[in-house]
C-alpha cells in the first residue's frame, strides 16, 4: 500500500501538469482537439487524486488531515473537485488553466515534502474534528477559487479599460459572469468558514488542554472571516460593485494564503499537532 502511495505522490503533480497543459492549449490556441481531450485529463486527475486520498485514509486509518502537507493535498483535491463542478455548470473551459494552477502548486509541494506517518495524536481521531477540518478545508478551497476568479476579473477589467485586447479579452467569460462566479464561491467559503469557526470554538476549549484564544491560526482564520464579512456587507449594504469588491476578494485571498502557509509553518500554537 505504501508503494502505491509513493507512486501516486510522484504521478499526481504530472497529472495536474498535463491537465494544465491541455487547458493552456484551449485558452491560448483554442485547440479543438484539446477541448475534446480536456474532460478525460480532468477526470483522470480527479479520480487518481480521490484514489490517493482513499488509500492514504485506509493505510493510516484516519483522514489525511494531520500534517500541513496532507492538508495541502486535500485542499488541492477540494479545488479540482469544485472546479469540475463549475465547469459542468458553466460549460466554459476557459478558466481551467488558471484555477488548476493552484491544485498543481499545492499537490507538488505536498508530494515533495509529505512523509510517512509514525505517531498520530489521539485528538486527531475525533469525528467533530473531522467536521471542523472538512468545513474549514472546503471553505479554503471555495475562497481560493473565488480569489482566482477575482484575479481574472481584474485582469479582464484592466484589459477592457486600457483597450488592451489580448488573449485574456478574447477568451475569458464576461466581467459579470466572473464577478458572479467569484461572489458565489465567496459566499460558500464564508458559510463554511463560519461553521468551521463555530464548531472549533465550541469543541476545542473542551478537547484541547493548551487552548488559547491567542492561537495564531485562530486569529488568522478570524481575520479572514472579518475581511469577508466586511466585503459581503459592503456589497449588500453599501452596494459596492465591480472592481472594488473584487480587490477586496483578492485581499481576502491573500490573507487566507498567509494564514494557511506562513502561520502554519512559522508559528506554534495548540493548532500545531505535528
Amino acid at each position: 500500500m505504501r508503494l502505491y502511495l509513493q507512486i501516486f505522490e510522484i504521478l499526481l503533480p504530472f497529472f495536474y501538469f498535463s491537465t494544465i497543459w491541455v487547458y493552456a492549449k484551449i485558452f491560448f490556441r483554442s485547440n479543438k482537439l484539446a477541448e475534446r481531450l480536456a474532460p478525460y485529463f480532468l477526470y483522470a486527475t480527479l479520480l487518481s487524486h480521490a484514489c490517493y486520498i482513499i488509500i492514504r485514509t485506509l493505510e493510516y486509518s484516519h483522514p489525511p488531515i494531520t500534517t500541513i502537507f496532507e492538508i495541502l493535498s486535500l485542499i488541492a483535491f477540494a479545488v479540482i473537485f469544485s472546479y469540475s463542478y463549475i465547469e459542468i455548470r458553466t460549460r466554459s473551459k476557459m478558466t481551467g488553466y488558471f484555477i488548476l494552477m493552484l491544485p498543481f502548486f499545492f499537490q507538488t509541494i505536498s508530494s515533495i515534502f509529505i512523509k510517512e506517518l509514525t505517531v498520530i495524536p489521539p485528538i486527531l481521531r475525533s469525528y467533530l474534528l473531522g467536521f471542523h477540518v472538512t468545513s474549514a478545508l472546503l471553505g479554503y478551497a471555495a475562497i481560493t477559487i473565488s480569489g482566482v476568479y477575482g484575479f481574472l476579473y481584474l485582469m479582464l477589467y484592466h484589459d477592457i479599460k486600457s483597450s488592451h485586447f489580448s488573449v485574456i479579452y478574447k477568451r475569458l467569460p464576461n466581467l459579470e459572469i466572473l464577478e458572479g462566479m467569484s461572489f458565489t464561491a465567496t459566499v460558500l467559503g464564508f458559510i463554511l468558514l463560519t461553521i468551521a469557526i463555530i464548531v472549533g470554538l465550541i469543541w476545542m476549549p473542551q478537547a484541547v488542554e493548551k487552548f488559547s484564544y491567542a492561537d495564531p491560526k485562530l486569529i488568522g482564520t478570524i481575520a479572514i472571516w472579518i475581511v469577508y464579512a466586511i466585503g459581503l456587507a459592503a456589497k449588500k449594504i453599501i452596494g459596492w460593485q465591480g472592481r472594488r469588491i473584487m480587490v477586496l476578494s483578492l485581499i481576502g485571498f491573500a490573507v487566507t494564503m498567509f494564514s494557511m502557509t506562513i502561520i502554519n509553518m512559522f508559528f506554534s500554537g495548540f493548532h500545531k499537532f505535528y
Partner: protein
Amino acid sequence: MNIFCLGINHRSAPIDVREKLWFSANEIPTILSFYKEKYFKETVLVSTCNRTELYYVQHNTELSGEPLWKILAQQKGAELFFQENHFYSISSLNVVKHIFGVASGIDSMVLGDVQILNQMKEAFALAVENQTAGFLLNRLFTAAFHVGKRARAETEIAEGAVSVSYAAAELASKIFEDLSNHTALLIGAGETGELTAKHLAGRNLGNLIITNRTRKRAEDLAGKLGGRVADFENLQAELSHVDIVISSVEAPSYILSAGDIRQAMKARGNKPLFVIDIGLPRNIDPESNTIDNVFLHDMDALNQIISINLAHRNAEVPKIQQIILDELTRFKNWHDSLEVIPTIQQLRDRFESIRSSEVEKHRHHFAADKYEELEILTKRIVNKILHTPMANLKNGTPEHSETETRNKIHTLRHLFGLEKKD
C-alpha cells in the same frame, strides 16, 4: 470538366463599375431563362454588392459570336461601361476551387464575411426554381455549401467583430452577461450609432432610449428600432439609469464631462457603465475612463479590435485552404467517376462491333434461319461476358467508391484501348 464561370468582383473592378452589373432577385429569373434557352445547358447567377458571377455548363458546341461579358453587360444596357479586363473567366477545376473560396469567405472583401454563403444559397434556390441548375451545378453548389459550413465549424474565419458597430456590441457583451437586464442610451441619430444600437438589440438588449438635438429624428429612429425618446436637455438625468451609452453627435466640445459621469455613477450605485464614443471630435471627456467601473471607448479602441480580429481571421486562411483542397479532390473524384456510363457504352460498342464483324465475315457458312440463331447466341455470349464486370464497375465498392471506380475506369479504358473519347 465542363464547368465555367464569368465574373466581376471587388478585385477585378471598382465599385462604380460593379454596381452597374448588380442583378436583383426579381431580375435574375429572366436572365437565367435567357441564358438557358440561348446558350447553356445549366446556369446559376450569383449577384451581391461585391460580386456578380455567372456559373454555367456548356452544351457540346463552343460559344460563338459576341463575348459573354458583353452579353451579360447588355442585360443591364450598360455594355459601354465595361471592359474585358473587368471580368475574369475561369473554367474546369479552377471554377470549383474559386466557388469553394467564395463560399468559405476567403474571397470576400471583408475576410470571412458570413453573408456570402446565404446569398449563394438564395442564388442557387432561384436557379433551381427556374430549372436552370442541373445535375452538375447542383453538385457544385452543394459541395460549395459544404465547404462554407466546414469553414465556419472547423476554423475561426468568421469569428470576432470586423465593423465598428459590431465591435462595440461585442465589447458590451464582454462587460455584461445578459443584455436583457440592461438599458442603452443612444445619443445622436447617426448611421454608426444606429447600427450599434441594432447590433445590441440583436443581443437582446432590454431597453433603448434615444435622444437627439432634433427630436423628430430621434422619434423616427425610435419608430424603427423600438425604444423611447428622451429630451436632449435631460441627458444627465437619463445617465443615472442606463448601463450603456452610445454617443455619436457632432459637437464642438464634450457633451458629457468627467464630472457628469462621476455624478451619474454615484446616482446609479457605481454599477458598471459602458460608454462608446464614436463622435468625431469626441463627445465625452476621456478623463471619464479613470472613474471606477466606467469603460469608455472611442473609435481608436474599436478599430483596434477590428484589426486584431482581421489578423486572427488571416491566420485561419491556411486551414481553409486545406479544407478547399480536400473538398476539391473529392469533387474531382466524383466527377471522374461520372465517366462510368460512357465507358460502359463504349465497351459494349467495342464488343458489339467485334461480334457483328466476325459474324458477318462467316455469314456464308450459315443458312438464313441458322444465321439468326447465331446472332442471338453470339449476342448472349457477349452480354454474359460483359455482365459481371459492368455490374461491378457501376456499383463500385462501398468505401472510397468514387476513387476506386475512377481507377477501374482508367484501367479498363487503357486495356481495351478506349482512351480516346468521342
